[in-house]
């Protein structure tokens, strides 16, 4: 049916109004993103040590329907972990709770200058074993499954290789930056090449911490135009879709809400991991104990993002050959480094994959 003249005038006026106000609405959406409430799934703190906090999320299914092995989420130490719990209805943690998992999350917190001497090893060998002990004490379980994301995956690998007699039941690795011999696709390897980058001098002059701004911009420069301009064009395009805008705001807040990194962690990552590839070559020693990935015998699910420009696939793929487990599954999903967990397809692709793999391996004997 043809529109009346009045309807066409109103429709045209509405479109004109939306077009005129689009820049202001876009600007407002950006500025409001910094105050957007995130990480809203109910939880309680069960342990704290230094800046590290361990949270248990309030279960959403009755105890008799829950999987008996709790799941501990270990996020990267350079970002806030609310990427795993963005918004109600768009939260990995919420999804896993609905799937019947008892979910714990380790938040590394924001280091201060007093943490300047911390090393990457400390996360895996000092803090994570203590957190695991608390998870077991709190849940009453005898085993725990672990999910590590990005740098968190590296920390969980350290833990799994060092605590071979420990209570780890399953290990999920999301985009682990492990094998640095495949550095041809990694811009970080080029930027921090030892031919022109003196990491000792750099770390010494940092006054204890590598700022979150430096880390954020380092990540953004990998895809500079897409991150500095494209992200805002994307918002401009979807400004009339409130749900889409809310998801964009949550992601924007996460990107701009990083945490600094202790200078020694950065120095160790560059020297031992990026330059020497010590973890893969078996030359890495923590507290006098060699770290051998071949000692990891628990089931491992290794998930890669096909379009990952932060951790190129070549760094993560060798996990299957390096660990000693007979039960290793590698999945390459069609997503980017962040989109794999928080993109609009994650709910239908990554989350069910994780849940199904873990559920099949979360039964207690007898």
């Amino acid at each position, binding site marked *: 049916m043809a529109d009346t003249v009045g309807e066409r005038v109103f429709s045209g006026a509405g479109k004109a109004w939306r*077009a005129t106000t689009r820049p202001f609405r876009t600007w407002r959406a950006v500025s409001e993103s910094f105050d957007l409430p995130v990480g809203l799934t109910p939880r309680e703190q069960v342990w704290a*040590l*230094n800046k590290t906090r361990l949270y248990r999320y309030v279960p959403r299914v009755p105890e008799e329907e829950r999987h008996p092995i709790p799941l501990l989420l270990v996020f990267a130490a350079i970002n806030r972990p609310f990427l795993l719990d963005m918004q109600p209805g768009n939260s990995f943690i919420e999804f896993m709770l609905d799937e019947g998992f008892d979910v714990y999350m380790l938040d590394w917190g924001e280091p*201060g*200058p*007093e*943490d300047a*001497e911390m090393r990457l090893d400390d996360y895996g060998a*000092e803090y994570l074993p*203590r957190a695991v*002990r608390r998870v077991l*004490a709190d849940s009453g379980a005898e085993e725990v499954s672990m999910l590590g994301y990005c740098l968190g995956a590296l920390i969980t690998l350290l833990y799994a290789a060092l605590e071979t007699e420990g209570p780890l039941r399953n290990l999920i690795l999301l985009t682990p930056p492990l094998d640095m011999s495949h550095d041809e696709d990694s*811009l970080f390897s*080029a*930027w*921090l*090449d030892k*031919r*022109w*980058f*003196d990491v000792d*001098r*750099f770390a010494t*002059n*940092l*006054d204890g911490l590598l700022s979150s701004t*430096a880390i954020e911009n380092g990540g953004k*420069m*990998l*895809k*500079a*135009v*897409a991150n500095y*301009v*494209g992200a805002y*064009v994307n918002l401009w395009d979807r400004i009339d879709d409130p749900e889409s805008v809310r998801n964009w705001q949550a992601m924007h807040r996460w990107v701009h809400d990083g945490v600094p990194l202790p200078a020694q962690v950065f120095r160790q990552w560059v020297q031992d991991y990026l330059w020497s590839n010590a973890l893969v070559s078996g030359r890495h020693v923590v507290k006098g104990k060699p770290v051998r990935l071949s000692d990891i015998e628990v089931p491992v699910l290794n998930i890669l993002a096909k379009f990952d420009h932060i951790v190129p696939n070549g760094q993560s793929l060798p996990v299957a050959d390096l660990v000693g487990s007979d039960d290793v599954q590698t999945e390459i999903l069609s997503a980017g480094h962040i989109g794999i967990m928080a993109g609009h397809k994650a709910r239908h692709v990554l989350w069910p994959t994780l849940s199904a793999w873990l559920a099949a391996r979360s039964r207690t004997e007898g």
Partner: protein
Amino acid sequence: MRDDSQEHVDPLGMARGVADRVLANASTFVDEVVASEGFSESLARGMQGVVTVTSALRRRVNAVGDFAAEWLNIPTRRQLIDLARRLNHLELAVDDVDAKAAEVLRLLAEEADDG
């Protein structure tokens, strides 16, 4: 009479198309630049230069702060950082003791169950 088959000229749409093409080309160009060896070297040297300069400035500011703190008879920044570091070590030690106590209690409970 309106002719629906006729395409309307959309100047905003055309501008957007041009902008998208400019962005795509810029993206390709910038990605190539940041992947070049020259950029890598410049970035690394630039970062080191900035950190070296700011470090020198920070040392001077800290020296002034320390002098003022001592004059006011309050702890200096360095002293506060040392104190926080000691508290962290203490916290780790307490956590170790707590773990051992929990293990002892668990063994005692097991023994009581067996007995």
